[in-house]
């Protein structure tokens, strides 16, 4: 087993798929406090984390602030803590979730989402209105926003990010069965809402 590990240590990029690369980067971060390895992890996850956060806070500036904070926090935890971390994905999404919770706690109110498309769209992305397909997606996004938090998360992770059930279970600290059930319910509810519109 050790021999296998060593093989990977010496030939990082040729034989490995992303999953194993990630584990190697994680190991390098933890054993050697290697910022470069963490940089690769950043590259692999920044977009996912940004989308996850944006979904929850609904503003570009705040999503950017929180996403960069997430990676800084993650780094600090990884180099100072010995606790076992099975997957970086699960870990970094949990950090993101906590950061969002802290963000709302600091603002002293419950989670709220932009439900006023006119304002947001007018302000940020005028171009997209010209494309009819984008209008459709905008509508879908607003429909998802009507779901409860728990459902929004699984829909985002499963269908937008296309993650596996076990990855989602890891991120949400739930059993795979629980994720399946939640996903099923969320899908049903979403179909209902889409159908009603």
């Amino acid at each position, binding site marked *: *087993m*050790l*021999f*296998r*590990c060593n093989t990977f240590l010496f030939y990082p990029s040729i034989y490995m798929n992303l999953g*194993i690369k990630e*584990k*190697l980067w*994680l*190991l390098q971060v*933890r*054993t*050697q*406090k290697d*910022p470069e390895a*963490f*940089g690769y992890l*950043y*590259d692999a996850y*920044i*977009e996912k984390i*940004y*989308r996850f956060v*944006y*979904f929850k806070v609904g503003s*570009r500036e705040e*999503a*950017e602030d929180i*996403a*960069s904070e997430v*990676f*800084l926090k993650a*780094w*600090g935890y990884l*180099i100072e803590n*010995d606790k*076992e*971390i*099975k*997957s970086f994905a699960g870990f970094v999404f949990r950090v993101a979730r906590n950061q969002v919770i802290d963000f709302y706690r600091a603002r002293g109110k419950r989670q709220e989402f932009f439900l006023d498309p006119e304002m947001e769209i007018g302000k*940020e*992305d005028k171009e*997209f209105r010209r494309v009819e*397909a*984008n209008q*459709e*997606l*905008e509508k*879908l*996004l607003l429909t998802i926003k009507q779901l409860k938090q728990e459902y929004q998360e699984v*829909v985002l992770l499963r*269908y*937008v*990010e*296309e993650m596996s059930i076990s990855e989602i279970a890891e991120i949400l600290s739930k059993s795979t069965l629980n994720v399946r059930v939640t996903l099923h319910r969320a*899908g049903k509810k*979403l*179909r209902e809402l*889409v*159908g009603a519109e």
Partner: protein
Amino acid sequence: MASKFTKFMEKNLQEQLKRLRTEYSRINPGQSWVASNRSKLMGQLNNTTIETRNTGKINFHFIYQFCSALVPNQLYLVVKPVIAIALIGAIATSGWIASASATENCLPGEVCYGVKMAAEKTQAAMVAMTGTQKDKAKLHLEFASRRAKEAKKVMEVKKSDAPKQAQVAIQKLEESIQTVNNAIKAVKEDKPEQIMEVKQEVEKKTDEIKQTLKEVDETSGGVGVSEATKIVKDTNLAATEAVVVTKEAGKVEVSDADVKIMVEKAISDTLSDGGDVKEQAEITTEMAKQIQQPIVVIPAPEIIFSSSTPTSTIVVPSITTPTSTTRASVKIVVDLATKQVEETKKDLETAKELVNNNQLFEAMQAVKTATDATSKASQAVQQIKTAVEVVTEKVIDSVASSTIVIVVNTSTPVIVTSTTNTVKVNSK
């Protein structure tokens, strides 16, 4: 028809959701921000690592985690021992001193703990072969101190089997201390001139271990530490006594004043232990007052009644007034313990006088008697306290709907009726 429509809709919906990521720019970060944020982050990371960067040290603990993360769960169970053996092999070939530190954070119950133990055994074997008894005592004191810290950590992590694993560590601690004891005897016989050095080390480490054990005890996880604490205290006393004896025989060069200070410290330690016992006794009484459930306490006869009270008189079989019975039972045990502690004070006063008359060996005997009595009282209080804690939990869980009989560390069979809950408390 309906299901076909649902499926079509579902597929369509899933396609759209996927497009949210690929085509819908608003929920995606701007590439320029991604890049600028990356370089900003890298700058911050480099700043944090300049001081702490670990250059090239292989950490087997993480490698172990990494290997286990690569293997699927079912297979993992099979390869677990293989990984452990491979790591032991790696450690054996790469120098045990460095490797022992790589597994220093491993706790009982973890597979790498075996690696840590193996490394320590190698260390102990090497000292046994090449080192002196003094080195042996030092090494095993270090091991004992590690075990105490492990027990504390295990209890802090709070896994479901924490008390069991803590007990494993405490058991090993007792073994290490026993080895220290033997080493002290050996030094006293063969190399009396080194006894002072050993004593100083013992004093330092045993103080530390006692403190850690006290903290383990305060986690209230039902881990019996009183036996271990007693052994640790006895070892310190044995070291002091060894100094006194070798000094009187003229085999060690140490000033009278220094030895006196040592004996006086032993006296004050025992006094303060007595104070602790009293404090615990008060807490226990207070806790027992909170319980409304009828309880019969049957304490271990050999512990509390060893001095003057005949055995088996404290079994309280009939319960007419439930709460008062509870309090009465606890009160009897606690009062006896407190009384015992009071009596030790007299012994310690005698010891002080003996020290003043330069009769240090006799003073040490008095201190030992007092320490024994205090330990017994402490164990009795500890047991009744653990019992009260267990009962409090049961009552909180509403498990106990009827009388609870507590059997404290006794082998005597207890006959209970079917409506009675028996809680056997076996605290060391």
